[in-house]
C-alpha cells in the first residue's frame, strides 16, 4: 500500500501511460507543445454543448480533473469523452480518481459519458483494480525518472501534439 502523501501521479499521467509512454514522459517533464490541437478544441466544444447546466471542470488537489460530480445516494464522478477509442486509458484514469478519493476516505463510483454515442459506462473500484493501480503508479514513477522512451510511430501519432517533436528529425 502506498501512503497517499507520496502519490504525486495525476490522472492525465495514468491516461497517457496507456496511450504512449513517450507522451507520458514528455508531459511529466513539462515538455509541452504550443498549440491547442483541433482535437482539444473539439473536446471542449462537446463539453460546452452537451452539459451546459452541470458544474464542470472540477479539480481536486491538482490530481483529479473531472467534468462533473453528481450526488444521489452516493457520489458519482463523471467524465465526458467523445469516443471510445481510448477506452482503456479513460477507464483507468477514472478508476484512479476513485482510488485517490478512497485514500482520502471518500467512496464514489465513476461514470464515463459518451454523449455522441449516447452511452454510459459505470465503474466500481474493486480490490483487484486497486492492486493494479498501485502497480501502475510504481511503473509510472519509474518511467518518468528514467530516460525518455524513444518514440515509436503508430497511427495515433498523426493526431498527437508531439508528432512533429517525435518525428520531425528524420
Amino acid at each position, binding site marked *: 500500500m502506498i501512503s497517499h502523501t507520496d502519490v504525486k501521479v495525476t490522472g492525465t499521467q495514468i491516461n497517457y501511460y496507456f496511450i504512449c509512454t513517450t507522451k507520458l514522459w514528455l508531459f511529466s*517533464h513539462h*515538455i*509541452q507543445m504550443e498549440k491547442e490541437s483541433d482535437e482539444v478544441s473539439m473536446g471542449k466544444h462537446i463539453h460546452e454543448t452537451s452539459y451546459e447546466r452541470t458544474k464542470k471542470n472540477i479539480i481536486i488537489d491538482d490530481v483529479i480533473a473531472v467534468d462533473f460530480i453528481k450526488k444521489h445516494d452516493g457520489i458519482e464522478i463523471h467524465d465526458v469523452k467523445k469516443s471510445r477509442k481510448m477506452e482503456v486509458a479513460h477507464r483507468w484514469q477514472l478508476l484512479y480518481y476513485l482510488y485517490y478519493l478512497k485514500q482520502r476516505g471518500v467512496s464514489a463510483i465513476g461514470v464515463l459519458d459518451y454523449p455522441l454515442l449516447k452511452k454510459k459506462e459505470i465503474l466500481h473500484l474493486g480490490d483487484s483494480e486497486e492492486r493494479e493501480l498501485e502497480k501502475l503508479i510504481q511503473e509510472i514513477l519509474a518511467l518518468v525518472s528514467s530516460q*525518455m522512451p524513444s518514440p515509436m510511430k503508430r497511427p495515433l501519432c498523426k493526431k498527437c501534439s508531439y508528432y512533429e*517533436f517525435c*518525428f*520531425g*528529425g*528524420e
Partner: protein
Amino acid sequence: MKTNYYITKDGVLRRKENTVYFIDKTEQRALPIQKIYAIYAYGNLSFTSGVVSYLAKNGVPIHFFNSYGFYEGSLYPRETLVSGDATIKQAEHYLDGERRSILAKLFVEGAAKNILRNLNYYSKDTNSLTSYIEKIEHELGQLPGYTTIPQIMSVEGHIRDFYYSALDCIFPAEFQIGERVKRPPNNKTNTLLSFGNSLMYATVLSEIYNTQLNPTISFLHEPFERRFSLSLDVAEIFKPIIVDRVIFKLINKNMLDETDFSGDIGNMLLSESGRKKFLQEYHERLSRTIEHKGLGREVSYQRLIRLELYKLVKHVLGTQKYKPLVMWW
C-alpha cells in the same frame, strides 16, 4: 494560419478590441490578433497603451530593426513553455566543454554543408567554383580534430571567406562582396547580407520562444555575444538555406536597381523599396513548403526551424543526437 507582419514604415500600433491596427499618415491596416505570429518593425514604431501587453499576452514577439536593418531588440513575451528539466540539461551542455564543442561543431558542419549545397548548385554552370568547394571541404575535414570554441569558430570563419570569394566568381561586378564588412556594410551585397542575417536571427528567436529552449544559452557563440545568442547558433544552419538564396534570386533576376539602395559606398543601406523587395522574397521563402519524409507531410521552411529546435531539445534531453538540417531537396 498565423503569419508574420513586416512593417517598413513609421507609424503607430493601436489596439481596438481584438484587433491591432497599424496607422500612419496614409493608411490604417488591421492585424487580427489570431493571425499575428510575429511583427518585424523597420520604421519608427510607437504604441498606444495596452497594445504592448496585449501582444505579449498573446505570445506575439515584436522585433525591432534600425535603418540599416540591423537587429536592435525584441519585445519578447514571457515564456510560457518552461521546463526546468530542459533548461538544466541545456545549461549542462553549455558548461561541459566536451558536450558544448560537440554541438558547436554540429552547427558549423550544418552551415558548411548547406553552403556547399548552394555552391554545388552553381557549379553546374561554372567550373571556377570547384577549387573553393574543395577548400571548404578541406576545412570541414579539419573540424573533428578541433575541440576549443576559438578553433571551431575559425573553421567557420575560413569557410565563410571561401564561400564569399566563390560567390564573387559568379556575381556581376556591381554585387561583388570583396571582404565581408558588417558595421556599416560597405557595398550592396554586404548590405543585403547584413539585412538578411539580422532578419534570420529574429525569425529563429520567434521559433525558440515556442519551445522549451532558453534563448540565452548558446553553444557555438558565446552567451555574452548577444542577449539571445542561441538564435545566432541556429541561424547559422538557415542562413544559406533562406537568406543567401533570397539574395541570389534578387541579384540573378536583376530585381534590384539603384533606387533600392541609399547612402554611399562605405555606408550603404537598403531604401524602403529595397527593404520591401527583400522582405517579400524572404517571406515567400519562409512560407514555401517541401515534403518532409519523417513526417509524411508538407512543411514550410519556417516550420523547419521549429523542427530543428525540437531536435536540439531531444539532444539535450539525451534521447536523440542532434543532426543538423542539410538541404535534401
